[in-house]
């Protein structure tokens, strides 16, 4: 057992001492600054390589940018978490370990990791650097969380987007560490860390390479009737009529034929939006709300952070009078995938 620590219970219902933290995506330095300026309590970022699950071209931070970003956040009393949440194979493990060392040297406030060897290295070498279990760690029960807590001394865990709100509430009461949940953004329909659809088609996976359905495998084709087809490494993911809105072709968001019917057999292009659940998440003792979207631009980060900041501040000031504002919902919908939002797995009927 390494560095396991007893944590004070955060489960005091509405009498909690600590308000829910707002954790926002930072795909680059301008997004980091926008998130901090718009009221994020913490941002999460990654190095410009395959050590994190948004290893997209042109995204993420080199050392100098990260140093400046951490300086910017710390000067304003906010935190920076470094996502090191992919699964290295043996040949590349030393590189992930070096990334952990690097995060510690740069003064990151925590690492967000999923892989046992990465967490173990961090716990042994940098016990003072907080370790959050990433959503990619697929921990959905108190027992799984106990493992990461007892073995690697995690001080927080991010839950996969699979549990209903009732299940989240119960897990908050039984988990050995405070929990962070996804509040808004693109929705993985599969259990994070448990999806091989991308590598089935491209050989490249979120777990191993930090990217799902990579852009270099995507081919759009426009036809004479103005319809468009989109393929991933040759496999037809979808076909769109003239002017029909078309989203990014991850395997899970295509339309397919099942028993002669063509539909979004796995998931529609839609975003998770849990705004209306905010009071329940707060009452359950959720420690932090996470906004997805390191691949999104400054405008998204700014608008979504500002909206959630306002909602959280209103709730903190007067929880009993809190209600969802139409302005907030409008602002969030404008930045949702396909301009549609869903309560997703939090709502039982979605399953």
């Amino acid at each position, binding site marked *: 057992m390494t560095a396991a620590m007893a944590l004070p219970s955060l489960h005091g219902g509405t009498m909690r001492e600590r308000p829910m933290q707002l954790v926002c995506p930072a795909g680059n330095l301008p997004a980091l600054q926008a998130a901090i300026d718009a009221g994020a309590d913490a941002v999460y970022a990654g190095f410009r390589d395959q050590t994190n699950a948004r290893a997209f071209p042109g995204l993420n931070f080199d050392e100098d940018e990260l140093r400046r970003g951490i300086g910017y956040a710390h000067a304003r009393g906010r935190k920076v978490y470094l996502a090191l949440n992919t*699964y290295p194979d*043996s040949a590349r493990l030393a590189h992930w370990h070096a990334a952990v060392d690097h995060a510690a040297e740069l003064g990151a406030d925590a690492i967000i990791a999923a892989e046992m060897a990465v967490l173990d290295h961090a716990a042994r070498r940098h016990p003072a650097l907080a370790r959050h279990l990433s959503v990619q760690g697929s921990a959905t029960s108190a*027992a799984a969380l106990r*493992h990461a807590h007892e*073995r690697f001394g995690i001080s927080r865990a991010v839950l996969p987007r699979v549990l209903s709100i009732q299940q989240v509430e119960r897990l908050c009461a039984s988990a050995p560490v405070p929990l962070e949940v996804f509040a808004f953004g693109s929705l993985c329909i599969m259990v994070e860390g*448990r999806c*091989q*659809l991308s590598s*089935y088609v491209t050989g490249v996976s979120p777990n191993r390479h930090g990217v799902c359905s990579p852009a270099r495998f995507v081919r759009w084709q426009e036809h004479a009737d103005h319809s468009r087809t989109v393929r991933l490494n040759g*496999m037809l993911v979808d076909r769109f009529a003239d002017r029909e809105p078309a989203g990014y072709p991850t395997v899970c968001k295509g339309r397919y034929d099942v028993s002669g019917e063509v539909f979004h057999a796995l998931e529609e292009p839609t975003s998770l939006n849990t705004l209306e659940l905010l009071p329940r998440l707060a009452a359950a003792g959720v420690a932090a709300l996470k906004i997805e979207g390191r691949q999104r631009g400054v405008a998204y980060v700014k608008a979504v952070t500002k909206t959630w900041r306002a909602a959280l501040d209103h709730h903190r000031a007067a929880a009993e009078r809190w209600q969802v504002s139409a302005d907030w919902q409008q602002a969030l919908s404008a930045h949702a995938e396909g301009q549609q939002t869903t309560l997703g797995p939090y709502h039982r009927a979605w399953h």
Partner: protein
Amino acid sequence: MKLSLGPLQYFWPRDRTLAFYRAAARWPVDIVYLGETVCSKRRELRLQDWLALAAELAAAGKEVVLSSLALIEAESELGALQRQVGNGRFRIEANDMSAVQLCREHGVPFVGGPTLNVYNHRALALLIEDGLQRWVAGVEQGRVLLEELRDALQADGGRMPELEVFAWGRLPLAYSARCFTARALDLPKDECGFRCIEHPDGLPLATREGEPFLTLNGIQVQGSEVVDMAPERDSLSALGVDILRLSPQGEDMAGVVERFRGMLTASLAPPAAGARNGYWHGEPGKAGLPLAP
């Protein structure tokens, strides 16, 4: 190399399941994995039924392992897992970290299932400390990754646990909170009517061009094709693979087992009877897709 019958991934009626395993007692497989790994709502057999089957198969000379659910969501599922882990006789295949932790807390050794996300030697070494005695590699773990993992573990002074590799069946690719079978039938998950039972080999999904692509199996998504690793016999053997996993399918499993048993001692590896597993070769998992666009 030994042969195992992996856990039944599909949902079959009770009588069919019992008949399948009673027949399997006579097949030349060494190890049988029993239990529901996909959906806790599938209850044609309860734990006591699985345990009774386990006792029958053990009496027939099989090594029996109880496989755990890959995705734990409800506290009731965790309770069921507790009872499985505490069965007192049979080893557990731990298919998520909840099961690893419960085995660890009970001080019982376990088989690390294919959904545990082990990609390197240190992770495997940590699980060995937790009680792992055998490791079933996940679908993405191809030959080169496994070789490097084995070499690195040995260089650290570690010893490889028994290594089991998926050798026949549709590759399990993803798990979700959502039931895709219920969705395809336009039913809410909570009122699914257990319709998976009508699809003993899953529900096929094709692209809009009619190209077979995936298989829907409740909350699990599989590849469309049955992969056959028998042609890779010599590379499996050279790697030190101890056990080949045959995943139960609706038809002619007896023939599949016979073929694998025969190929283990044949002078040459057989020609393919199923799809190539691209993952094994470091390619896209689906056979025939290029490495780069």
